[in-house]
């Protein structure tokens, strides 16, 4: 038994308080909460979506980072555009993005979402999702490996951690 005994935990108030208090800036604390629960939208348009699925699966396991998938844009913080966007789809992507609450982040996953990729010469493919919505991170690959997507998520977390959160809220209003 290494843990403290029950009687030992009930201590005089001043002694109890000291080891359990942590001082920090409010921004840091809030960002820490936010980055530990980046919920992403299940938005798989093409091949990259399969790798997105595998990334959510047991081996790479995005859940470790508090990132779980949501089916509704209204509950998501992160839009991972996994796959090709066509002109026919473009309006809907914009709509989905607009439905997400602020603050929101976008990863363009795969060459198609970055710039059109393999399908740049095609008549029906949008050459990069940044022509429709703003993008925070570009993830190259065709498709990117789950490890790469994992890295991109960590990048998003880093970005969140560094943000002056209150300022951002003001901008949004």
């Amino acid at each position, binding site marked *: 038994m290494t843990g403290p005994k029950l009687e030992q935990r009930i201590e005089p108030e001043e002694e109890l308080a000291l080891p359990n208090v942590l001082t920090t800036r409010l921004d840091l604390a809030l960002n820490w909460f936010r980055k530990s629960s980046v919920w992403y939208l299940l938005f798989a348009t093409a091949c990259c979506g399969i790798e997105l699925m595998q990334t959510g699966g047991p081996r790479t396991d995005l859940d470790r980072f508090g990132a779980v998938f949501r089916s509704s844009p209204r509950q998501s913080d992160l839009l991972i555009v996994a796959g090709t966007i*066509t002109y026919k789809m*473009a309006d809907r992507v914009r709509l989905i993005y*607009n439905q997400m609450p602020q603050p929101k982040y976008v990863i363009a996953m795969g060459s198609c979402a970055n*710039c059109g990729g393999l399908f740049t010469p095609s008549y029906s493919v949008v*050459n990069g999702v*940044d*022509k429709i919505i703003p993008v925070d991170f570009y993830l190259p690959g065709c498709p990117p490996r789950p490890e790469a997507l994992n890295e991109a998520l960590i990048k998003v977390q880093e970005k969140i951690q560094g943000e002056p959160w209150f300022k951002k809220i003001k901008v949004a209003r």
Partner: protein
Amino acid sequence: MDAAQIHARLVERFAEAVLGFEQELIDPAIAVAAGRIREIAQYLRDDAALQMDFLRCLTGVDRRETLEVVYHLLSTVHLHTIVLKVQVAPDGARVDSVWDLWRTAEWYEREAFDLLGIGFTGHPDLRRIMMPDDWEGHPLRKDYVFSGEYHGITAERSDGLDAFGAPATDKKAAQARGAAAAAAPPSAEEPSATAATVSAEVAETTSPVEPPVAAEKTPRIDEPGESPSTGKASRLSPPTAFQPAMHTAKADPVEGYIQLNMGPHHPASHGVLNFLLFTDGEILSRVIPDVGYLHRGMEKLAESMPYASTMPYTDRIDYLASMFGNWGWALAAEKLLGIEVPPRAEFCRVIAGELNRIASHLIGTGSTSLDLGAFTPFVHWLRERETVNDIMEMICGARLTYNYMRIGGVARDISQQVVDKTRRWLDHFLGIIDEFDRLISFNEIFVKRLANVAVISPQDALSWGLVGPNLRASGVAWDLRRAEPYSVYPELQFDLVLGKGWRGQVGDAYDRFYCRIEEMRQSVGILRQAFDRMPEGEIRAELPRKIKPAANEVYSRVESARGEMGFYVVSDGTDKPYRARYRTGSFTSMSIIEHLSPGLMVADLVALIGSLDVIAPEVDR
């Protein structure tokens, strides 16, 4: 009966309506008069000795002076095939519809209308299928040039280079400067304008429904002038009001029914598929599938590059079963060139293909359970699939888009290490399938969701052109590995898995689901045999440096995880295909949903889509 005999019969019966016979083609074709196609098609379908009960593929080819409609017919009873061809004039092109002879033709004809501007007289619902309703021109026409802009989204690259990364030509540079950002390049103006008038005219005269008009109905990007990557305002712009962009009389509101839109972003819709639902409470009165949200124009791209360069694109036709895209394309080129593939390469192909079939069925069955609310089985399958991905990586270096096969063979040999690892995994995997069965397949709630839901009769399955496990679940013993054997499949033992009505009727959603589970067991058996029999030797045939097949036409087909995957390739003697056409299983499975849906519950629709295992890129290509 071979093609010559079929031709003789047609000549005997229709005399002057039979215009020609191209016997020298790999798949011989009979040219018939445009006005008589319906009559001839009906005869071919109904004559007892011919019984062409299956329309494999219907498409068009732009021959510049004329448009050609091509019908690939098959008799599953007599095992013979024939190709019919009809020539029509490009302006105001029109031919009789055969949609009621083979119901699958309804969607094929819509596709031919959309991409080539061919009109079909008597078609019930002739409107665009792949492209948006307000799209201009028909992309698969040879003279089609994309205007470079749609709803304010331009196709330019920010670095000013052209699509292939080369310095832009003067014309494009001028466009980049904004001189003519919205307007089509002058050379394109005339053809696209003609095509647009033609299509409007065709729609007016042939279709009983309203022609697709009212471009303003489509939701537009709200601020076309502003690039969202630069402007902050667009980030905050109000959401656009949503309206379904389906201009058809069918989609008009019906008194007493709720109109509901499902997709194109929907967690249970297997990619970007859209459905317009008419429901009376929980009961569906009609479901109209709307596809084309992932139409990437692969057929047009194939026309612009050498045969070998198309290989990576075929990975992406069906990314869950990329090997079969590779395989079909390689087979098409090999048939055109007349090359033999070395035996070891054939075994490599079979091994890679069957592994891929397992990987694909893992997602097919797993996502069915996920859609019906069971998450755990899906995660089990994802774990198993990671091992398949590892093996695939050892074989070809990629996890998903394999690009493994080459014209004349395969890219890399399969090493002993791979064989050992796969063998170990297969032993483990057979046990896991049993576990999966106990966990979900025989779970009472799950069974009740699928059994007796959306039953497809064998006649319907053939008429709608279903293939693969969906067709076999209806009790039709049709598998290309058996019926039209290719590669080394004749040497390998395996059983055809047919729907038996395991928990309900033959051809219900449960049969379709369980057929896939059983097929995985069969694939394990095939893999073990292939490992035992694999000979030593070369993995690639000798090829000319430049692949330039003689002018010919071929329809190569392989049994993919989603059934027959066909590649109709027209070669004109140059190093690029004149026309490439991909026939896929999901396209036809998608088209049957409208027929099956009346009377189903809304939740059954999810079960139906899951059990058909449709996948968006295969529908749209």
